[in-house]
């Protein structure tokens, strides 16, 4: 009954549509970021996307495309500096994270006089998503999921062991770039839903929750998508009834499910040990 009431509002319908697309796309690409220990990269791209959004406002480009372009420029920049080997990898990533956020805030600050709400980009504003934006999110989200599933085996092989994958003839460097671009696209579509400061969490936390069950890669992905979808639906519903910030509530629900998974995994493991010693 509660769900029917919420769904009678157009803005909530659009929020659920956008949120559910993201809840599938984020862990689909997020699982590869987590196993490759790219979580910091996800956060960096998210922060850089803010600079893209701000630049997009100046040039009249859609925030989704502008964020994606900024992320791709950042990916290429990070890779270029890493190749020169003058700075450590994590230092390069931190540089882009801080620089991207600072540039974004400054550029957005220049536009605040026109009534722009900066926090909507930082923390999302899924309740104000338009029908056209939902279509954009759905199109890009579907492309991210379809491409990732199509290249699932090569991505998996490269994540497992880069050197062996390269020896096997896989184009490791290009696959890594494509993975980063797909991550950028996921971040771009998430700006309206959870905002740039929280998307990293939505890509990573459901995967961490799923990993607690210690099952195979595909099963981990399926559980992560389920955790993400449940967090989205629960988060949006709670935020509507309790008048909470929607993006942050979605992420908090994911964190709660992670804690629940961790506890359940520990209890199961302790139970199994007791059975084994009897």
């Amino acid at each position, binding site marked *: 009954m509660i769900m029917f009431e919420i769904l009678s509002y157009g803005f909530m319908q659009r929020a659920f549509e956008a949120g559910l697309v993201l809840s599938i796309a984020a862990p689909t690409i997020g699982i590869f970021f987590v196993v490759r220990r790219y979580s910091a990269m996800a956060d960096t791209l998210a922060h850089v996307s803010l600079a893209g959004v701000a630049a997009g406002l100046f040039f009249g480009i859609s925030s989704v495309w502008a964020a994606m372009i900024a992320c791709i420029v950042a990916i290429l920049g990070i890779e270029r500096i890493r190749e020169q080997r003058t700075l450590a990898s994590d230092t390069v990533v931190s540089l882009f994270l801080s620089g991207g956020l600072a540039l974004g805030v400054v550029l957005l600050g220049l536009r605040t006089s026109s009534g722009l709400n900066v926090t909507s980009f930082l923390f999302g504003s899924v309740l104000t998503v338009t029908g056209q934006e939902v279509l954009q999110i759905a199109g890009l989200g579907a492309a991210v999921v379809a491409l990732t599933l199509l290249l699932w*085996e090569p991505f998996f092989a490269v994540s497992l062991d880069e050197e062996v994958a390269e020896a096997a003839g896989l184009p490791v460097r290009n696959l890594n770039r494509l993975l980063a671009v797909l991550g950028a696209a996921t971040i771009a579509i998430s700006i309206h839903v959870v905002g740039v400061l929280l998307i990293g969490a939505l890509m990573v936390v459901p995967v961490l929750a*799923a990993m607690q069950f210690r099952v195979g890669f595909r099963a981990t992905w399926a559980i992560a998508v389920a955790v993400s979808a449940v967090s989205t639906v629960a988060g949006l519903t709670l935020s509507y009834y309790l008048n909470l910030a929607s993006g942050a509530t979605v992420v908090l629900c994911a964190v709660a499910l992670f804690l629940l998974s961790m506890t359940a995994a520990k209890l199961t493991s302790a139970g199994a040990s007791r059975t084994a010693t009897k």
Partner: protein
Amino acid sequence: MPLKNIAIEATGLTFVRNGEALFENFSFAIKRGAYVAVIGPNGGGKSTLLRVMLGLLEPTAGSVSIFGKPCDSAEARRRVGYVAQRGGMIDPSFPATAGEVVRAGRTQVHGLRHGYGADDAKAVETAFKQTRIGHLRDRVISSLSGGERQRVLLARALAAEPDILMLDEPIEGLDPGSREEFYATLRDLNKTGKTILFISHDVHRIAKEATSALCLRHELVCHGTKACVVTGRGMRALHHDHGDLSSHHGLESDGPLGDGS
């Protein structure tokens, strides 16, 4: 020797890193079906040589061919299975079952193409049988012992149905039982015609398994039957402080094998 009997041929191979030659201008040939032990002291260039043969590193000079094709060509890569050094292996917390890891070996055949058919399933099944780990297929790799994990990685390499197997110290750190199982599996694979290149520090043990040996110490110290390497210049290169160990082993020195012959 007819060219078709040569699995690997290195010509004038030199590799220089930071101005220092890891090895310089050496040539050798390895017959199809050979079981070659690659031995030498730490830093002698063994792993670098393997990476050059796998097409992962470009030599400063010279070339390597696999069944007559450049080692970095798609045709050559398709015929080589690689089991990496134990230290550089998969993160044990990686959420994957043994079955998923072995199946990943088929990407060597498919590349970026999508699809997994009956041929793939058959190749994976054969790899499980050859390594005797069919019972582990649904187990996550974090729950496997070191020896079981190494056999999963061997099965992954075999899933691509390679003609040559290159192994970089795959048994380091394993218990004696797991080592023997690993050696037994390789022995069986060699009997089926697979060419094997095995980097090992356990010279005495690998000498019992291999049919020939390559000894590296910044140069190709010797290359030939294992007797040549284990009893002669090879052992002197490995234990240059301990004199000639030939008498200790009581084996005759032999001439080089291959070398484009």
